[in-house]
């Protein structure tokens, strides 16, 4: 890797400039926006032209944007897929046009696992959602060593993260024993709805010992609810976002899992560059970047990127 980046600092002048398309999810959402930032920075470093398109969360739009990128004859497409199923068709289209495709923050193929990349991809750069759940579970077990009631705050209904980020979390609790999950309720990804869900759950179960919110925003909202209800429950989030890290520092949250969208975007561009310049060959691999658990003890190890 060091070798390739060393090369890319001074791209050979005779070579035509590479154009990479980034078909992003929704740049008004902070996470994909940070991916785009990271990708732009890396592209500038590498001297690559980056065309970023924002589907604004609309699957059909993402599809047409990939078509537009194909029509523009870009050299490679980094797809931040909205959904693995439809994304496969997009990858097929790009592949048919002879354009290299890789994904960031997501994978392709409805009935696949992220570890098993679709063969027409060049690479996958993503976070290990299931692993993050496990990390959160480990933290939970440490936070509440004696067990107790646990409530899970999921995102809006219909998101895959609601299962991937939760399955190994509950597994970790079960392994330890002594925990009961008393509620699994949606917080719709926002602080306010996370707060409402936790308020309501606390009204029905005053003795919840731990809340696991699958995003930092919801976890922060949850923290506010806990404070207002004078509960001693601890909150664990996922994301390592600025709000989450701040909340860990001031004690509102117990811990989170550190996601790094900026690095992720950069890494995806790097991988695509390598693929286009022939440094990345062979069967596609899934790159899970490091997503460590963060608590007050090691909070400085996670520099928030979104």
């Amino acid at each position, binding site marked *: 890797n060091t070798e390739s980046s060393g090369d890319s600092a001074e791209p050979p002048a005779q070579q035509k400039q590479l154009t990479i398309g980034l078909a992003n999810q929704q*740049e*008004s*959402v*902070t996470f*994909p*926006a*940070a991916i*785009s*930032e990271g990708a732009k920075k890396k592209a500038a470093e590498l001297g690559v032209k980056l065309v970023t398109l924002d589907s604004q969360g609309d699957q059909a739009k993402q599809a047409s944007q990939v078509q537009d990128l194909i029509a523009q004859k870009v050299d490679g497409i980094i797809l931040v897929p909205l959904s693995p199923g439809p994304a496969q068709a997009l990858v097929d289209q790009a592949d048919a046009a002879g354009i290299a495709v890789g994904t960031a923050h997501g994978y392709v193929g409805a009935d696949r696992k992220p570890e098993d990349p679709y063969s027409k991809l060049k690479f996958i750069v993503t976070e290990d959602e299931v692993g993050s759940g496990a990390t959160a579970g480990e933290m939970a077990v440490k936070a509440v060593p004696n067990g107790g009631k646990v409530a899970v705050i*999921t995102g809006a*209904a*219909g998101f895959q993260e*609601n299962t991937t980020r939760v399955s190994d979390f509950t597994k970790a609790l079960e392994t330890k024993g002594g925990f009961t999950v*008393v*509620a*699994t*309720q*949606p917080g719709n990804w*926002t*602080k*306010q709805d996370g*707060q*409402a*869900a936790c*308020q*309501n*759950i*606390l*009204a*029905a*179960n*005053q003795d919840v010992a731990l809340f696991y919110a699958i995003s930092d*925003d919801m976890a*922060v*909202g949850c923290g*506010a609810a806990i404070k207002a*209800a004078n509960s001693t429950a601890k909150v664990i989030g996922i994301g390592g*976002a*600025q*709000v989450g890290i*701040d909340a860990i520092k001031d004690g509102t949250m117990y811990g989170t899992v550190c996601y790094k969208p900026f690095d992720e975007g950069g890494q995806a561009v790097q991988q695509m560059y390598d693929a286009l310049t022939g440094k990345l060959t062979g069967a596609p691999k899934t790159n899970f970047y490091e997503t460590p658990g963060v608590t007050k003890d090691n909070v400085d190890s996670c520099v928030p990127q*979104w």
Partner: protein
Amino acid sequence: MTNPAAKAPAWRKALAPRAAGVVYAFIALLAVLTITSSAQGRPSYLSSVNLSNILEQSALIGILAIFMTVVLISGNFDLSVASTAALAGTVALKLIDGNGTFVAVLAAIACGALVGLVNALLVQKVGVNAFIVTLGTLTAVRGVVQAILDGKSITAHNTALLDFSTGRWELPVAVALVIGVALIALAVVLAVRSGAVREKLVAAWPLWLAGLLVLAIAGFRPNLLDQAVPVWIMIGLALVASLVLRFTVIGRNLYAVGGNAEAARLSGINVDRYKMGAFVLNGVLAAVVGVLYAGRFNSVDPTVLTGGELTVIAAAVLGGTSLFGGSGVVVKSVIGTLILFTLSNGFNVLNIGSNYQNVVQGTVLVAAASLYTATSQRDRALFRKRVARKAPAEPAPVLTKTGA
């Protein structure tokens, strides 16, 4: 000329499902949730904490629903409220650290008024359909928010807004008791003064029922007198808006303008002023809500409140507001909001799977609205038949004189 037997007394009208349906639906919902919750051995659903939660969660959407109702009464339509609130919140947080709370809030409210004014001008002066105008501003204003925030969420350091909008305020029990007694006394005085005591007393049910409610709260759930500031704001605005709509000429004119703009114009009412005023008012209050919303966590992100406009309109329509103008009651819209939030509170309390929440929510929404539409129609049919039976009091002799 008028057949008095055929006329329903005022109180019967006031209590008919047609008029008070949303109240019944709300009570029914609370009853179902309370019973289910106690059957599952959970703490009382009607605990002060839970009721306060519902109120707090409803407060901001409730405020929006009040002024959406005003716009709907005026015969217009506003999809841009949620975006406007997002813009105001963003502006407030952007400015508060550098320029102080006052400037920040003022700027935020000015933004809201501006959006309202743009809507008003395009709809009333240019004559473009309100749906398309406010869909346009919904999109454009959201775009401005996105451009300002550039994909990042921001947090302010100045905590003035945070302190204000997460603050709580407690109504002293004594004051509550006085208010409760005063309301009941007012109802009685009004009834006695008018002569027809019994009938008037029943007709004034909102008054004494509110009084009893306040007394009951003060007596049995004094904790409920301690509410978050946005809840008090919602209650205050609902009261003021109700009183203005009901007891001032402005209110009458607003209903007239929405009910038949041509008739209102020919009666000398400045139709444009009322319709535009409603838009601007709605923009201003959307801005206030945006500031309160941003203040709740002292932070905003570009997707704040996305899609909120449909919830707001749903609350107003559930409260019986007509989409065609000329009718609507703000308090009922607030109750419509409470229904929506009670429902999601109930999901959380009963821990209903998130995949099924939408199914239940949609069904309850339609069921609530159907219930009181259907009963009010059956009611009418029943009523008509009953009256019909006693109608022809004087059997008239038919004088036939068919000639030729």
